[in-house]
């Protein structure tokens, strides 16, 4: 058992949660405006587990709910928060909600549902043509799974044996629509057989289970075995966007979902296994809180872009 890895996964999930909570607070206190935050609350284990299975040179393509993989791949919380505060010190210089850091293999997308999936396929093609053993991973939601872009890319990935992981975060809802309304297959992963791809359905609230499934898919892709579709079943605790009161869900349903909170589950498990003490967890929380507070402070102190910068970076 790798104790450091288990504790690291818990810490990553905690950092995602607290960073996003600070983001939501800034929105509710009207410190920032614009489109409300898309929170990964409840889904942290998917990004934490999946990104732990990747190495430098691998790429992830994110959805609109993209802060979790950014944190999980080790991006600087200061520059993530600065971007969300629309500051020029942000990774994208205040140009996008979808934080990108090419040096760490994170391409922020998601303005158009499923638009990132074909592009991830293209990066996988470049990795294959370049004779590297690097892989690409496309995050997409259960809603996006009904988009043609996903179906075409899955088919192309099978045809060309692309080193691609199609990682579906099934959080149960496409905005207000329950998954079962629009997915008539047994599962989203069940569709993989139609493309000739291997697939797995995993507990998306357990980072170790996600890690194992993604690590197996990554190993297969690195060895030239092609693409895999993984459906991580998880829970969306924070609503579609932060201002969503989720009036379309019952109190009982939400309470049951909170019982599945991946941070709660991992913490209790590590405490029970004796790998974590209450004091150790308190120290971890304090360290994370400090990191988030520093990120918020950095964002607040950072300047907005100059108006003339609106005209930069269109053309290469």
């Amino acid at each position, binding site marked *: 058992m790798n104790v450091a890895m288990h504790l690291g996964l818990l810490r990553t999930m905690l950092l995602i949660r607290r960073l996003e909570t600070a983001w939501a607070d800034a929105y509710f206190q009207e410190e920032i405006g614009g489109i409300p935050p898309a929170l990964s609350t409840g889904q942290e284990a998917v990004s934490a587990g999946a990104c732990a299975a990747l190495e430098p040179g691998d*790429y992830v393509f994110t959805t609109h709910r993209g802060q979790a993989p950014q944190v999980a791949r080790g991006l600087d919380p200061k520059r993530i928060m600065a971007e969300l505060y629309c500051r020029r010190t*942000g*990774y*994208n*210089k*205040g*140009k*996008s909600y*979808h934080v*990108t*850091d*090419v040096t760490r293999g994170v*391409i*922020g*997308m998601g*303005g*158009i549902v499923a*638009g990132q*999936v*074909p*592009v*991830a*396929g*293209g*990066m*996988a*093609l*470049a*990795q294959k*043509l*370049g004779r590297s053993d690097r892989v*690409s991973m496309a995050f997409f939601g259960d809603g996006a799974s009904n988009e*043609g*872009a996903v179906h*075409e*890319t899955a*088919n*192309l990935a099978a*045809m*060309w044996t692309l080193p691609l992981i199609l990682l579906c975060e099934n959080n149960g809802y496409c905005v207000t629509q329950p998954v079962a309304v629009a997915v008539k297959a047994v599962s989203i992963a069940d569709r993989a057989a139609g493309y000739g791809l291997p697939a797995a359905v995993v507990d998306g609230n357990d980072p170790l289970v996600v890690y194992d499934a993604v690590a197996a898919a990554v190993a297969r892709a690195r060895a030239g075995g092609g693409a895999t579709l993984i459906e991580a079943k998880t829970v969306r605790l924070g609503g579609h966007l932060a201002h969503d009161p989720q009036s379309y869900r019952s109190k009982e349903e939400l309470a049951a979902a909170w019982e599945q909170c991946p941070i709660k589950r991992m913490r209790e498990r590590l405490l029970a296994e004796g790998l974590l003490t209450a004091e150790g967890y308190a120290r971890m929380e304090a360290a994370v809180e400090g990191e988030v507070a520093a990120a918020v402070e950095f964002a607040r102190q950072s300047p907005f872009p100059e108006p003339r910068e609106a005209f*930069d*970076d*269109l*053309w*290469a």
Partner: protein
Amino acid sequence: MFDRRLFRPGGPVPQREREWPSFRGAINEAMREEMRRDPAVFQMGEDIAGASPFGVTARLVTEFGTERVRDTPCSEVAVVGAAVGAAMGGMRPIVEFQFGDFLSVAIDQLTHQAAMLRYLTGGQVKVPIVIRLPCGGGQGAGSQHSQSLYSWFAHAPGIKVALPATSMDAKGLMKSAIRDDNPVLFFEHKALYRTRWPAPAEFRDPNHVIPFGRAAVRRIGDDLTVVATLTMVHHALAAAEALAKEGVSVEVIDPRTLVPLDTETIIQSVRKTGRLLAVDEAYLTCGIQGEVIALVTEHAFQALKVAPRRLGNPGVPVPFAPPLEDAVLPDQERITSAIRDMVSA
């Protein structure tokens, strides 16, 4: 009369044209030279390795193999997306669409992903892709295989648009397109594929490129400026030739690229002639003809002797039956008639 059907395929190549490079052969040669020069350049498209539809990719697979000349399924979204991702990963993909109209299927991948990702990431990525789009009417190909949709894409920020009218330009502009670090749409009028055009010696020079944003003055004149693209360049030149016999001196400008557009050459010409006619197969409403007229009106209003005019598809689908097709597309006769009206006004 100069008939658009002269461009239609079939019939032997006239003796005097045998030494001239064909339009589609010029594109083929440009791609071949660039694939030799740069191993990052590769091709994707339907049937481009097996039996390339208009013959533009003919024999490339023999030299470069199926890794670099990749047949794709009928999946426009995934293929354009694959080009975007591969370009971000350091490759330089060229994508062929069998008919340019089909790009409508993948418009998100082009206008939001390919065109915007550099901007959205604050300049962290570049997306050097070329998408080849057979376009234009006159072949009885029907409404969904005959359009000239570059106005749609010139409207979207972050996309360059090339419109070659001769073999020389097809080759030189294609080489520029492949070397460009931005997304480029390369519109190829289907009626031009089999045509042959005299080319200067530098046509054979693999280092010769034609830069974007530099218009070609195809004919020098004093009385009126025609701005035309693709086959309309040749219709305009035929009209100018006929009108010269009537003592009307027409200048014909071929912008060659719409983005970037060489506004300076167009404006200078209109300052000299005082009259502007913009001709294109594009739909007139929000079309490129109106854009050219707007630019000239903003910058050289005082030079205009008569109101500028535009010719184009007035706003119906390009019809299937040739007599209907001829009723909606501009041609030499309509250009001649418009010029006569404008110089006698």
